[in-house]
């Protein structure tokens, strides 16, 4: 089983809020992996948006991300990108 993991600091200004949690869940689905968030000795699966939200991860919190499945590394890279986004205003050109 492919497994990739990484520690990241949340860069999004509002922490892991609804849109970030939604995107994390969709990454798990689109890459056919199991994606987990680890924080303060808790480990939740990103397929549950409510579990992810109730971790209440604010900007600056450190979380472990674990992906398990054939595309673990790609999924992890995508997830890390989402968590690290400086802000997620959709029309904020990142040129």
């Amino acid at each position, binding site marked *: 089983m492919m497994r990739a993991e990484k*520690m990241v600091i949340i860069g999004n200004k509002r922490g892991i809020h609804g*849109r970030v*949690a939604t995107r994390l869940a969709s990454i798990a689905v689109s890459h056919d992996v199991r994606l987990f968030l680890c924080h303060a000795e808790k480990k939740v699966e990103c397929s549950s*948006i409510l579990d992810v939200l109730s971790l209440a991860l*604010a900007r600056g919190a450190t979380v472990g991300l674990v992906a398990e499945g054939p595309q673990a*590394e790609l999924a992890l890279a995508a997830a*890390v990108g989402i968590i690290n986004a400086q802000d997620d205003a*959709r029309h904020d050109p990142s*040129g």
Partner: protein
Amino acid sequence: MTRPVKEAKRRRPLSIRALQGIGVSPGVVAAIVVVFKRQTLRAGWYHLPAEHIEKEVERFAGAINAAGDELLQLREKLAGDLADALSIIDSHLLMLRDRMLVERTIGIIRHSNVNAERALAQALSEIKERFDRIDDPYIRERFSDIKHVADRVFGLLSGREHSPLTGEDQPVILVANDFSPEDTLRMQEGNVHGFLTEKGGITSHTAIVARSLGLPAVVGIEHATSLLATGDFIILDGGSGRIILDPAPADIQRVRKSNRRDRLLADELDSYIHLVSETVDGFPVQLSANIETLAELPTVLRFGSEGIGLFRSELDYFNNRQPPNEEQLAATYQQLLATMAPYPVTVRTFDLGGDKFFNRFPGNKAWLDRERNPALGLRSIRFSLYEQTMFRSQLRALFRASVHGRLRILLPLISALAELRQVKGIVDEVLDELAGQGHPVAGDVAIGMMVEVPSAVAMADVFAAEVDFFAIGTNDLIQYSLAIDRGNQYVAHLYEPYHPAVLRMIRQTVEAGHARNIPVSLCGEMAGDPLCAPVLMGMGLDELSMRPAIVPKVKRLLRHCHSDELRRMAQQMLQCGDCDQVRSLLARELANLYPKEYYQG
């Protein structure tokens, strides 16, 4: 759930002339109100005989599915420019299927032998308990979304149809305890000119949807559903949050007049959509759009962009439900190019960004080491060169789609010539492969690079000989050249687009590009800032790429400029020693050149 109350029972003291709430979506409207009362009727809670348990589970699953279908239907009908609403519906779909809601409810039905309503109410209160413990108000507020989702399931369990939010033949303002984001989206189909609620806050998803629809809204007016009655006439100010009851005829006139003025302004801007984007003396600047999904194409065309200056391919990648294989990417790019033809489309290759270093050794605890400098790490083109299989499939898809329009491939974060040459080597291999497999490829595909790293600016003259175009990405260029992480609250104030160093680097890049006869575009936030855009035009940029909806505004500015005035202004800016000087010069110059409303707001 709520239902409309048609009888107008007046319960408020006549002395109340105005109410104050929180304005969450600007705009002033005058109309009669329709009040939706909170329905207090609840299905009874009861125990079930053992043989009915599985039937009850099925009934619950049916309601979940029906609620999911409703959300999917609404999602399909959404206009492409409502990206926020789309994301909210997606999060509601996830909540609807969440194990804490579904599995827990089914578990309670089975273990406590109770009906679905009782079980769902218990599951919901357990979720509420968890959310109540959260300190962060923004995340805690998401419980209201879960409640909206559960409320719809309650409604479906009791066989209730959606309350009609529309169907009025005159303009109305809707009043309720709360509306869900989905309720708000449904309002756009009817004669709803605004709404006000007892609950909610500025960060609620309902407020976000209202803003993206441009629907004036006020929230947080306690007892609004009893203070107001269907048939009352009010003025609602979605900016200040003020509600005026039984307004004087003169006030109503004033509101209607100002709405007419807003419409005229919008019409005036609309009139620029089909005009050529050039200065008074015929100097052209291409105004194109930054987009990230195909869904935005109708908006791009509506506002008259002359092409796509930046297609952020990685967001399309994130949003896909499936891994983006070559076929899917090719189909996306084909549609993108064909829709925009004959205008050019610039696709930036995957900018999988930020912090992309991950551990290749399963089980190793080294991932506890933090990436110290994510912005300087394995990101963007570096990531593509690292994950070459992914990069090659994107390049193959791009070239295969190239016959359907005018393609420009944009390479992000190039910092050294060797990197660029490595990419070009891969491009050549991909082209050979495609030719060998009999795939036709357009002969005029342009390959350009983002200039967003100081080293690329310093070497721009060398790079200009190797690429077909430059695209300056100011957001990263500012971050890298001023050494500012805009996400860091302690230094964010130093992030300064008007820093003369930034202006000089833009100028240097333009000169290097033009010396080699290649076009130079700019696609950061600066391009769409009506204050900045004239200066950029004066620096000789050939193309500015911005949010689609801003294009008419920038075009109006451009069409009132003389190119020599712009050049003179830019020259003066480049002589400034600091950003304050740049700003005051700009304020003075622009005020002399155009009416204020051209560059403000």
